[in-house]
């Protein structure tokens, strides 16, 4: 008798919804997974950036929508770019964001992360997952919010806000003045140069 109830309930819930992980649960579980690895992995603690990048590549990136991020950062210039340029831009911007993110993670020490309860309706297709990071030695926590959208293959992050400020829109002015001065190709070149420089520095020092 008791066994019947759960199975009956399961029948009532549509399959897609049953499989879907709530956005806040997703963010929380990924962060915990990544932090667990950071804490264990000796290579990462010794300052091996390649290892951090690998970790991000496999665990974190699948949950980001980089095309949308690039589109937001480009603003109205997105439409000026050809589909090829859009692809190149997205690729370079992705590399830049990944390196930035891995630098942030390599700095991870003993921050405490608190997740705020999700305020969203079940039918929402865009939500904000809020968290607060408290670092030792500091009296003020930093708010980190993830803007997420619902897609057929789960929830995806399309913007990250630090202290309420969107990292993606922070690029907007730089991008637009670059495009104004040197065109879309010029921007792609600058991004690529920045990425190569980051790579070189990384190779040289091993750690930032």
């Amino acid at each position: 008798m008791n066994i019947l109830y759960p199975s009956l309930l399961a029948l009532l819930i549509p399959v897609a919804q049953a499989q879907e992980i709530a956005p806040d649960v997703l963010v929380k579980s990924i962060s915990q997974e990544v932090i667990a690895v950071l804490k264990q992995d000796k290579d990462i603690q010794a300052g091996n950036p390649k290892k951090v990048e690998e970790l991000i590549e496999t665990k974190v990136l699948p949950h980001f929508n980089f095309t949308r991020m690039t589109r937001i950062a480009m603003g109205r210039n997105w439409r000026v770019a050809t589909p090829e340029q859009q692809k190149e831009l997205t690729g370079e911007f992705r590399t830049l964001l990944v390196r930035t993110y891995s630098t942030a993670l390599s700095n991870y020490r003993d921050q405490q992360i608190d997740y705020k309860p999700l305020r969203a309706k079940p039918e929402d297709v865009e939500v904000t997952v809020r968290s607060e990071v408290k670092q030792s030695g500091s009296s003020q926590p930093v708010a980190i919010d993830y803007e997420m959208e619902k897609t057929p293959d789960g929830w995806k992050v399309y913007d990250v806000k630090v202290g309420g400020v969107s990292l993606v829109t922070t690029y907007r002015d730089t991008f637009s003045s670059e495009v104004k001065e040197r065109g879309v190709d010029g921007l792609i070149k600058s991004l690529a140069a920045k990425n190569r420089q980051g790579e070189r520095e990384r190779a040289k020092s091993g750690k930032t």
Partner: protein
Amino acid sequence: MAKRLCAELLLAATLAGCATTGGNPADPLEPFNRAMFGFNDAVDGAVIKPVAKGYRAVVPGIIRTGVSNFFSNLEDVWISVNNVLQGKFQEGFEDFGRFFINSTLGVAGIFDFASDMGFQKHNEDFGQTLGRWGVGSGAYLVLPILGPSTVRDGFGFLLDTKADLVFYIDGVPVHNSLYATHKISDRTNLLDASSVVEEAALDKYSFVRDYWLQRRRNLVYDSNPPREPEEPDDEPTKK
């Protein structure tokens, strides 16, 4: 003396505003600002950052938190006044409660028991109060050593320093070393963030500027800024 220098630079910068124009409408003083940014960056790289790194390496986290809390506690009084000036009486009351609890139970502010008791720390200053009163931010302005600001926030800062309780501690050497410790303590808390900026920015100057301006706007409106007339960003799904 540093304050007089500040005031003079502010004035100079305001006047210069009429003469120069740059790319970003919020940053008409870009040439001046870029130069000052470069200067600050050099000072930071040569002195402040290395000291902050040393401080972090030598002083255990628990003591650094105590130092950071101590200054943070002194700020709560002025934060309280600013909240009241902005008509946020409950917040102002909470700030005062924080100061009271942490100054006594928290041993001169070294421990932040008030946060554990549910009194949230707020971020206010006179620049934000002016913003709340409807004063526009004015031109973006990079101040020597102090870094990113705006004309409005620069004026606000002049009052903030007068309201800083450290200002009233007797003895010039004592309060100068307290200022220095405060600066180093704040810088230490930003070490990680600044290495991320190095990595992230295509152009560090404009990245910091754009982040800063958005951040201040966000603070003035306590994280609920009215929607800006945004550039169309070609997003079919939203807005």
